[in-house]
């Protein structure tokens, strides 16, 4: 019948065509990145020198970019438009990260002073605090705020410290024995997620400090930052390859996107990734002096 009836032959061809198209669509959905470039934050005038961190103010729907070499904080609106720059009247010394506290003041990591600096914008008052833990000076690094609690990475001891309102450590998360060194951490899903750059592993701890099994990452060269997708994936930024790799919660590679360079789909010595208030993935692209925002 198939040989004799041309209509039937055409039907079969259509059926196979649709089957293969559907299969390729499913395959592509599993292996290709769903992320598309949305907007870029680049500052005004001389722009940003070397942006090293991004804070997303979910309440005000604003972006704050930390420009370490420019010694300034630069804010952008939800649409990516430049708002203003803040230098604390020229007194910021190599800022490295920041968050906004519940009272509206800014908490800035000043690498040049090794201090957590509270900037009271209303009263134009700046307070520097050198944090100590167990009698030793904390080398303050990455900063996070979640559920009103402030967390900081101590690069001297390799611990994540939870701080109280006076910036004194009240809880510490120590890494497992044999861990390498930590590049970044995020607080999400009521857990502290930590990226081990040397071992290429991700550790997670619940609020009581109980660890979950480490997630081993493969296919990356030099991981520097991670972001936790509520949809279930882990995103890891590979600085040397200028790429973002998406992993399943068991460490299996789902897909990767972007590459090293200076074009639109490139990153050049990127520093950090994080999600914004709209679930878009933001990349601090230090070498290209910009923040790239990707939407699904």
């Amino acid at each position, binding site marked *: 019948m198939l040989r004799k009836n041309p209509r039937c032959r055409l039907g079969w061809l259509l059926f196979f065509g649709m089957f293969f198209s559907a299969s390729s669509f499913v395959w592509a959905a599993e292996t290709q990145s769903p992320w598309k470039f949305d907007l870029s934050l680049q500052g005004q005038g*001389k722009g940003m020198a070397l942006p090293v961190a991004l804070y997303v103010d979910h309440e005000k729907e604003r972006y704050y970019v930390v420009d*370490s070499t420019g010694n300034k904080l630069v804010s952008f609106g939800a649409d990516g438009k430049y708002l203003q720059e803040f230098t604390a009247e020229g007194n910021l010394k*190599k800022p490295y990260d920041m968050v906004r506290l519940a009272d509206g003041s800014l908490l800035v990591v000043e690498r040049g002073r090794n201090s957590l600096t509270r900037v009271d914008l209303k009263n134009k008052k700046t307070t520097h605090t050198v944090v100590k833990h167990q009698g030793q000076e904390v080398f303050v690094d990455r900063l996070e705020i979640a559920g009103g609690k402030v967390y900081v990475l101590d690069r*001297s001891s*390799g611990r994540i410290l939870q701080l109280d309102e006076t910036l004194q450590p009240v809880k510490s998360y120590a890494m497992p024995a044999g861990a390498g060194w930590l590049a970044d951490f995020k607080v999400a899903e009521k857990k502290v997620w930590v990226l081990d750059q040397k071992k290429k592993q991700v550790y997670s701890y619940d609020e009581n400090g109980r660890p979950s099994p480490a997630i081993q990452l493969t296919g990356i060269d030099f991981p520097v930052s991670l972001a936790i997708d509520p949809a279930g994936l882990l995103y890891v930024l590979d600085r040397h390859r200028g790429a973002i790799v998406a992993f399943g919660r068991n460490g299996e590679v789902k897909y990767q996107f972007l590459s090293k360079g200076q074009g639109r789909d490139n990153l050049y*010595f990127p520093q950090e990734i994080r999600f914004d208030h709209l679930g878009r993935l933001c990349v601090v692209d230090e070498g*290209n002096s910009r923040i790239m925002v990707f939407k699904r």
Partner: protein
Amino acid sequence: MRRLVIILLIFGLFTGLACSVALANEVCYKCHDKKNFSGKFTHGPVAQGKCGDCHNPHVAKYPGLLQGEGATLCYSCHKRSKTEFAKGVVHQPVRDGKCLGCHAPHAAGHDGLLRKNLAETCFVCHQEMAKPQAVSHKPFAQGQCTVCHQPHQAKNDQLLKMEADALCLSCHQQAQGSAGHRGFPRKLTGCLSCHNPHGSSRKGLVRQHLHQPFAEKKCDSCHGAQQNTGSEACLHCHAGIKTTMMAPHNHMFAGTENGCILCHSPHAGDDKKILKTSGNKVCQSCHQDTFSRYAQSQHRHPKIDSCSDCHEVHGSDRLAMLRDDGNQVCSRCHLTQGKFSHPVGDKVIDQRTGQMMTCVTCHDPMGSPHRYHLVLSAKRELCTQCHRSY
């Protein structure tokens, strides 16, 4: 019937072998001197006259009329090696597929078809090791490198057969109670932080340069109960280093142990900086991906003595921890660059980034597939990034 099949098979095997040897004798060795293909140790296919296993007698893609390139050809027979040699820490020539760096393909006077004896083979690349030392470790003096190292790959750094301390103590069981270790507070560890496993000018293979408190036997200044832990144990004395680390990019390692001793030995070293191992190998222990890219790139900056010629080792405000901006760091050697070539400097802005044009805007010294280690092809792609109307 079964017997007949076996007899025919054996007959066929011998006939085939005889034919292939005869083929090599009759055809290949008519021009190629057979003496060059025989030695104390001969490669199996050569001994069997199977020149055609590796070479195509008529035409081939690869030099030497080879059927395949580099290690790919070797792995076509040595299949297990391909899997084994990809695990753990891999020796660079193996990683680069350069089997012939150490092995002769036809025949050699040394076991394993090594081109020279074991130590001489190693010293072809590891030239600094060949320098005579006042005191030498016995296996090293006897050229027995493989007593401690595996030549292809290993689970441990430096291609060691075992974890370093376990390897030392596997021979030196008496070291635990020896006079030199009197007062050592716990089980011996970190042997290599004091001893050079190859040779030294000091007795007991103690490394050449000693950390001052160690030389003065003031162990308490670092190990005392009241002392700092982590990197602070070092930085409370080396305050200047701490200042240089207070930069956006730094090597303050956020690890569970003292980050300083990832690069430095706390007791003794072979140079004034008391590094754990020689020069760039310290950097390579973490930045393996960069070293691999450099080694495998078609175009790259000529070999530089030390990474620290261009990069700060403790901390820098600049990208990639460069010592200076992307022009100054290059123009120290490339004196005329920027004066007659593409304009660079703070008055020439890269429109893509808003940053000044520097040498590294277009060149990647760590390696690239393009000529002059350019980041993109100079035929068009590189220039049209900025000069869009061209």
